[in-house]
């Protein structure tokens, strides 16, 4: 079953096309969306979530366009933004339980889940979010987006700014969740370890969609990083600008 279906998506900012007709499907899997800075990864996530509007093309989540999703369906999605987001003057505990409550959990249920996640992510419940280090803020952000047990999770470069230990911890948590995950990253090691399939995007176009193992084999590479560089180098020169009639 397709959890996300993106078809011929185009998006322009000012006079620049940042997405040029991308298409892909995400099943019940961890789907990696890999590409350099400015490739269009975050824009794609925002369009799928209905935060941004596409200029052309269609997006379906659970078989519906983002606008058609019911409140409950929207609330069942988790979204870890690339930038660290938090309520600065609330405590760690309040930051987590409040967003569980906003997403439909009862107060008691949200508080129970928050306590569990605080232990799992090794956070201090009474500390104000503004007093946390960058790594702790990132862990808080991820914990907050897991509080309601999401049915689908978007992770937009979630391990940026994390130390190795925290990165391992988060990768372990993601791997054990058994839910569909849309995962954008720069880190090929993470993508190789975590993702069932990956799409490589560059300059608004998807260059390839494959499993990490298959891509490594097809490109005669030692690892995913090597394979990624080969794909990017081969394809960059072939990318042409879209027609003006879009």
């Amino acid at each position, binding site marked *: 079953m397709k959890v996300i279906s993106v078809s011929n998506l185009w998006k322009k900012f000012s006079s620049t096309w940042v997405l040029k007709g991308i298409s892909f499907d995400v099943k019940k899997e961890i789907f990696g969306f890999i590409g350099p800075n400015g490739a269009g990864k975050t824009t794609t996530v925002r369009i799928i979530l209905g935060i941004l509007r596409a200029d052309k093309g269609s997006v379906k989540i659970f078989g519906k366009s983002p606008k058609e999703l019911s409140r409950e369906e929207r609330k069942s999605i988790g979204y870890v933004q690339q930038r660290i*987001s*938090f309520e600065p*003057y*609330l405590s760690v505990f*309040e930051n987590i339980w409040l967003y569980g409550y*906003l997403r439909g959990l009862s107060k008691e249920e949200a508080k129970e889940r928050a306590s569990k996640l605080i232990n799992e992510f090794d956070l201090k419940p009474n500390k104000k979010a503004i007093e946390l280090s960058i790594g702790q803020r990132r862990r808080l952000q991820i914990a907050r987006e897991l509080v309601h047990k999401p049915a689908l999770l*978007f992770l937009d470069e979630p391990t940026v700014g994390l130390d190795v230990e925290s990165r391992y911890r988060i990768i372990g948590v993601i791997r054990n969740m058994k839910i569909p995950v849309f995962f954008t990253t720069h880190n090929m090691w993470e993508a190789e370890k975590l993702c069932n399939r990956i799409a490589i995007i560059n300059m608004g176009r998807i260059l390839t969609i494959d499993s990490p193992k298959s891509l490594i084999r097809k490109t005669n590479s030692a690892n995913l990083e090597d394979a990624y560089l080969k794909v990017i180098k081969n394809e960059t020169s072939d990318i042409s600008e879209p027609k003006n009639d879009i």
Partner: protein
Amino acid sequence: MRRLIYRNLRTTYDLKPHLFFSLLLPTLIYIFIISLAYNKIIKPIPMYDRYLSYSAFFIPAAILINTLQLSILCGSMLWTDRYNGMLEQILSFSSRAEYFLSRVLSIVIISSSTAVILGLISITIIKDEVSLSYTTTPFLFLYAVVMSSMIFASLSFCVSAVVRTPDKLTMFNRMITMPMIAISGIFYPPEYLPSIISNIAKFNPLTYAASLIRASLLGTQTNILHIILLAFFAGTMLAIAYTLFKEMDITY
């Protein structure tokens, strides 16, 4: 919606614990110091069929200064959410309409609560001239405060949706609110102003809000047209603010 309002109130309280005191203080100074001092040097003001002391004329309307100052924080709160990444986060699971309405309603709750506190304080200061009615006073008082709050919350949302930096937000809010207070019926009857400015006051919702809030506490005549005009201003401002917010870039 109810949960979003709860979140807005919870985060506002934590964001600025000194907020209510800092915003109540200027109005309390107006009520206790300035109006009582002016009372000695300004002769009674004719209003409908009676003469009002300057305190009685000014104090009810001074509550609206507090309403205005609180309500324009709505735009700053939008900016804070944008800056902290929480606007994008909230919009990933709720609509722009829900966020917009929850923000406006939260500020209406805050400004109405403080207005009621100030109203009760005011009654004790001008008790000799107060004329309360169990039926009309609560309705007119809350109507004037709620409509004014919606208008200024919407106005600050419009400014927030258009400006690109928080510094400009503060600057534009001051540029808009100062003349609106000056060209209204808060400090003096608008008909005492030069005729051009007096005509401008007719397009200022504060003029009608001031008239209604006086009617609520002093028992002066209620003008139905003022009730209708205030609702018209509130409806128009809400529609403009939401239209601008719908198109606003939510990233920072």
